[in-house]
């Protein structure tokens, strides 16, 4: 009996009127955990009942504590008929199970009903007494910390990064069990909500077990998704990176340990501090554990583990060369499972050297190869045992193997910034995975911690090391154009770099970055089954190819040479495929300057035609120079590549090693480089090219004062103020039938552009500001509908970029120091470039034949000079860092603003909760992580018109979801959610029936932060931060 869960129902407020006669409500509450239910007394005739119940105690296994949510149902008592449900609250107990997270859940939580939305609030108190369980055979993994953040959380230090963890559970979807009977919306929705809560809990527990087994104590970059397969089931899957984290104890003790810690907490503390490393890594885990991990979710089903049958897979073509994954994928289930677990626990030869992290501790990321991706089309109705996870496991297995082999082909041993996704339409499912092939330092993989001081004694020159090619120059798997690094001049770098990770903090960047999107629509014939899947498989490579051409062209148009945070989403519908690629373009100082774009016509006889072309060329050139100015790109090179000079064309392939399981050998034959055509020449003879050019030129620039990126931070902007605004925007567009590809493209592109324009307009009061982490998701909810959802955060910054000012910005001190350092470096380099003779080396041509170059001497001298300069700046940078760590001096502008906002919020009786998709809060220091927030809601209506139509319905629902996230964070004692994301927004409507339904899944990390300016009074502040919510709760 390892745990005691205690819950107390205090009061309710703003309850709906349930009795029309009296205009009042006789409310009572049912508290349910597992199979135990308690009830409060009926509080008659009140909309603000005061139950003040006793403590309801549940004595449960910690396994159940992890899996089950606490269910609170508020009902209206009715003497004559059945009691009416007012609504429910699901409380995830998980944050209470971890010693370092929250200790109590207390506060006003919205009472939610899937039909009526939020109906009042309930004040509850929840605590857990956890008894230490040292049983190695246990099924629970209490104490493993989960973070959505895809970097090492701010107040922790990575002792070890163990590697990839994944898990997948399947169940029948309750929505599809009503087929014979009449569906009752509320019952069905609630069953679904509850099931997903349960499955998420189970998934987290199982992943936790794997982490413990690997010797870790935390999962970072935890990404959980669910697939609504329809009749074949409901899949919840998750991936993450297992780590051993250590709390950085630079803060006063009061900050990390709230004074109100319960005795149980003290018991837990040593338990996990000591225990986690104690779990032996080499001695294999006991068998019962493994069996459990792969048993089906519903125990009633007998599990037959006869492998994943190959006829569900469309990938019949045997893989050649790098396709080593084929055989592994076909292994029998349990055997494979066993194998996988063992290899995973063995650090040396791990099966998937994948990391879901996108930002790394300094010195961890050595080299980046490029983007690797794999897709596969599957038929859901061919799954033999839909209730078992084996088939899906095998599918992902196959894809991961492919990713791994791609990484290997790029000379890399690891994949970072790794993510997986699906798109489902009827019975067809596209599985996608992508990441960035990389070479990592072994330091974090072996036991033995890294001291903070060592960070700056890094041998690899900061700022360009990661750009150096990891693959063998003579044995490149694709034609690539290499030059010597423009920073250190020692190693080779590619001409363009695509990655899925965040811009490394140490990277040398020239100017600012910007959001770059490639958008594409392709029609396809309506088809069924295998034919449909084949058609989709055949379309995919072209789709990807065009997306990359677009990306590349847009990158060139902005005068940039690298993409970060690349995310390609392919969505499948009945009659079309949608592709959306988003990334943040930057100019990496280490990489060569991109050439221009040349327009060429095939028939140069006609004069007007020639004029037309030259006009277009001029337009493009103008745009490029305008863009360069806009993004402050003044590369140190003096000799600019003359536009149009023939350059071997290796581009898409070089950066993007992508494939597609259906046709992987086809892919390797597919010439992605337009044959022998010039790299940057756009032929405008065919309509496609004209369209391309138009697409290029119609992208309107961001309005003055705005910047945008889809990564965490924008290079070149440091002095953020504390003003942030997180938002979600959703648009659904109805198409006309019979549109051509071009027409569709235009519409889709306009849809995205207009959405961005609307965002800029909405947020105009925050200028100067940057939209960070712009995360677009597209979907085809039904035929002729395109849905685009965006979640991002707008952050204001101070225009004055004086270095003096940039000094403090506290919790980011380190990063700041580095970026600052960069800036100086950059500056110096610029100077250097100016003073040194015009360097002909910058011509890509020259670089290919280094030895024969006449001015090699010049190059050497400038190179040495640069090294000196760099050494100098590094030293300076480190000095600065230590000084700023010692004392965070307040920034004048930022402070005044934060004070103002504080003052204005203080009067509210509801605690303010900030939300951001980023891992940090500008101008503030995160002092505690309270646990993961992972919530799933369904909302349905049968009175769509009355609720303001589809927009009114969704607007309310999203606002409600925000409200519930904020309330739960506040109840945990937090004042912000970081790494927030809306992972799913499934919207279905039936206007004729006046009905609509929407499912939303959100996640993030609940944290306590304190403003930089208030850091001096840390202890007091922490106290008030933790007691804030209870205060708010009482202030009715």
């Amino acid at each position, binding site marked *: 009996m390892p745990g005691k869960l205690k819950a107390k129902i205090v009061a309710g407020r*703003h309850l709906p009127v349930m009795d029309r006669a009296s205009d009042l409500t006789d409310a009572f509450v049912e508290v349910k955990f597992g199979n135990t239910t308690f009830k409060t007394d009926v509080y008659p005739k009140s909309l603000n009942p005061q139950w003040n119940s006793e403590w309801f105690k549940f004595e449960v296994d910690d396994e159940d504590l992890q899996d089950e949510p606490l269910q609170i149902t508020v009902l209206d008592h009715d003497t004559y008929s059945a009691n009416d449900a007012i609504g429910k609250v699901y409380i995830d107990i998980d944050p209470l199970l971890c010693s370092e997270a929250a200790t109590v859940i207390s506060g006003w939580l919205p009472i939610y009903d899937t039909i009526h939305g939020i109906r009042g609030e309930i004040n509850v108190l929840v605590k857990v007494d956890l008894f230490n369980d040292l049983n190695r055979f246990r099924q629970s993994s209490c104490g493993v910390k989960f973070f959505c953040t895809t970097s090492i959380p701010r107040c922790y230090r990575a002792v070890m990064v163990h590697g990839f963890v994944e898990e997948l559970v399947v169940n029948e979807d309750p929505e599809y069990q009503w087929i014979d009977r009449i569906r009752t919306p509320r019952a069905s929705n609630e069953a679904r909500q509850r099931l997903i809560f349960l499955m998420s809990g189970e998934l987290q527990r199982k992943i936790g077990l794997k982490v413990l087994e690997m010797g870790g104590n935390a999962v970072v970059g935890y990404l959980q998704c669910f697939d609504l397969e329809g009749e074949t089931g409901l899949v919840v899957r998750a991936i993450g990176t297992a780590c051993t984290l250590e709390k950085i104890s630079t803060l006063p003790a009061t900050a990390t340990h709230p004074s109100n810690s319960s005795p149980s907490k003290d018991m837990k503390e040593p338990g996990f501090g000591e225990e986690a490393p104690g779990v032996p890594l080499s001695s294999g885990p006991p068998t019962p554990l493994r069996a459990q991990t792969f048993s089906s979710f519903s125990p009633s089903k007998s599990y037959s583990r006869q492998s994943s049958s190959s006829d569900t897979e469309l990938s019949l073509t045997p893989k050649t060369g790098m396709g080593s994954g084929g055989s592994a994928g076909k292994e029998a289930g349990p055997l494979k499972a066993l194998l996988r677990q063992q290899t995973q626990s063995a650090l040396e030869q791990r099966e998937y050297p994948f990391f879901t992290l996108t930002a790394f501790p300094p010195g961890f990321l050595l080299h980046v190869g490029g983007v690797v991706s794999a897709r596969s089309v599957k038929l859901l109705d061919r799954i033999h045992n839909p209730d078992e996870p084996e088939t899906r496991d095998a599918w992902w297995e196959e894809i991961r193997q492919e990713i791994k082999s791609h990484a290997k082909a790029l000379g890399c041993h690891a994949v970072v910034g790794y993510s997986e996704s699906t798109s489902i339409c009827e019975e067809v499912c596209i599985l996608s995975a992508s990441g960035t092939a990389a070479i990592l330092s072994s330091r974090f993989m072996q036991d033995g911690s890294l001291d903070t001081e060592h960070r700056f004694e890094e041998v690899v020159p900061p700022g360009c090391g990661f750009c150096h090619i990891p693959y063998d120059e003579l044995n490149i798997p694709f034609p690539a154009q290499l030059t010597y690094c423009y920073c250190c001049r020692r190693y080779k770098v590619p001409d363009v770099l695509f990655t899925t990770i965040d811009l490394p903090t140490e990277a040398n960047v020239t100017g600012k970055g910007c959001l770059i999107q490639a958008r594409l629509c392709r029609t396809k014939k309506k088809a069924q089954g295998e034919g449909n899947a084949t058609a989709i498989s055949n379309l995919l490579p072209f789709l990807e190819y065009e997306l990359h051409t677009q990306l590349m062209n847009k990158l060139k148009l902005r005068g940039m040479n690298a993409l970060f945070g690349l995310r390609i989403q392919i969505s499948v519908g009945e009659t079309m495929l949608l592709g959306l690629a988003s990334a943040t373009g930057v100019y990496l100082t280490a990489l060569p300057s991109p050439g221009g774009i040349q327009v060429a016509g095939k028939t140069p006889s006609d004069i007007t035609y020639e004029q037309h072309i030259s006009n277009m060329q001029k337009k493009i050139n103008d745009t490029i120079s305008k863009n360069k100015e806009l993004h402050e790109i003044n590369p140190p090179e003096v000799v600019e590549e003359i536009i149009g000079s023939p350059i071997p064309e290796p581009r898409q392939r070089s950066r993007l090693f992508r494939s597609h399981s259906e046709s992987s050998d086809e892919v390797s034959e597919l010439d992605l480089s337009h044959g022998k055509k010039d790299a940057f020449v756009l032929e405008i003879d065919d309509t496609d090219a004209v369209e391309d050019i138009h697409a290029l030129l119609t992208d309107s620039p961001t309005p003055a004062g705005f910047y945008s990126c889809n990564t965490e931070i924008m290079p070149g902007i440091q002095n953020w103020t504390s003003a942030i605004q997180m938002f979600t925007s959703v*648009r659904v*567009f109805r198409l006309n039938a019979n549109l051509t590809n071009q027409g569709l493209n235009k519409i889709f592109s306009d849809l995205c552009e207009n959405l961005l324009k*609307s965002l800029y*307009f*909405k947020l105009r009061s925050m200028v100067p500001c940057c939209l960070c982490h712009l995360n677009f998701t597209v979907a085809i909810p039904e035929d002729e509908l395109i849905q685009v959802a965006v979640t991002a955060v707008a952050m204001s910054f101070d225009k004055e970029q004086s270095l003096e000012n940039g000094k403090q910005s506290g919790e980011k001190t380190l990063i700041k120091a580095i970026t600052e350092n960069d800036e100086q470096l950059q500056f110096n380099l610029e100077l250097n470039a100016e003073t040194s003779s015009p360097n002909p080396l910058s011509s890509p041509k020259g670089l290919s034949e280094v030895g024969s170059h006449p001015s090699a001497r010049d190059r050497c001298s400038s190179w040495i000079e640069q090294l000196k300069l760099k050494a100098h700046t590094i030293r300076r940078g480190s000095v600065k860092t230590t000084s700023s760590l010692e004392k965070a001096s307040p920034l004048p502008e930022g402070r005044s603003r934060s004070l103002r906002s504080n003052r204005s919020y203080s009067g509210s009786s*509801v605690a303010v909760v900030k939300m951001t998709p980023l891992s940090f809060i500008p101008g503030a220091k995160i002092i505690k992580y309270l646990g993961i927030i992972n919530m799933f809601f369904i909302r349905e209506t049968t009175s769509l018109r009355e609720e303001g139509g589809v927009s009114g319905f969704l607007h309310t629902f999203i606002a409600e979801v925000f*409200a519930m996230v904020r309330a739960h964070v506040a109840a945990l004692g937090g004042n912000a959610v970081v790494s927030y994301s809306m992972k799913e927004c499934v919207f279905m409507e039936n206007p004729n029936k006046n009905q609509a339904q929407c499912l939303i899944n959100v996640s993030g990390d609940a944290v306590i932060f304190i403003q930089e300016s208030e850091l001096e009074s840390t202890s007091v502040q922490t106290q008030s931060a933790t007691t804030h919510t209870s205060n708010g709760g009482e202030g009715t």
Partner: protein
Amino acid sequence: MSVELDVFVGNTTIMDKEVYQLWLNGYTVNDAVKVRIEGGVMEECEASAEVLLSDTMDQYRTFQMCERLLHHPAKLANQLLFQIPPDRQAMLIERYYAFDDSFVREVLGKKLSKGTKKDLDDVSTKTGITLKSCRRQFDNFKRVFKVVEELKGPLVENIRQHFLLPDQLARDYAAIVFFANNRFETGKKKLQYLTFQDFAFCAGQLINNWTLGAVDNMTEDMDVDLDKEFLQDLKDLKILITDKDLLDQHKSLVCTALRGKTNVFNEMEANFKNLSRGLVNIAAKLINAKDVRDFFIDLVEKFIEPCRSDKWTSIDMNLYLTHYTNSAHILDTFKHHAVWTRYMGVIKSCILKMYHD
């Protein structure tokens, strides 16, 4: 091809003051967009009409969702659905409860009933205020009326606490409630020259001096109903005009005091008895609810108009009323000093406020 759904939800609810005002003024989305385009916001922010339309619709939707909360402003502060900074909340409430003087003049003193609401389209045509806005303002009056009707304690304070309104606005609402409760006639042609602020001032005087609340501060309706006992006592003042000696004595005292101090002395002397009868008769009749309604029209007809035709200045008026009030206390046979002071204090300040063009 059309945008089927278009929403924007911020963690902190974004509300544009300008659009809010347009919404409050009852503009349709399209009209609001037109106004915004004319306002030049497009050039300022490089936006298109499409963007403006989307933003306006979105804002309108947000306001509609908030409207429910604005009906109970206290809820706005502890609701969880919208995260709105307190200064914004205050702005939302204040503007929602703000009203047009021209509108309030039309309904002031009328019963806040369904019947009156039905006539709002006439008011809308007359004032040029949109029907939607008229309805909002009317419903606000009615809502405030309903809530404070059942509350004990001072009227202004109750309104301020329940509706979180700034002091001045709370006082204006108190006046509206007071007028609606006592059904004062304000619509007659002769009263048209009076502004809402004139009436609001008078209401404040009446509330502070003539209601139950002026003597006892813990009863229901204390500030909305006039003190019945006081009204009864007012009848005793009749002696000032019925007793001929007293009337003459009063006149001579006033005239002595005013001689040489005003340019309209002769007219004043000639009119004294008429004016005095007018004021005392008003006092004596106030016990009848019907005559209470005519309080303002009576003041104008019986006192203000005669004075105005004699071209009294405000200074003359002030002088006259001061001495008229004070002289009564010197009369030996006049015993009702307290009632007289209570009555004349209000009458004097009301008349002074109302005595303008």
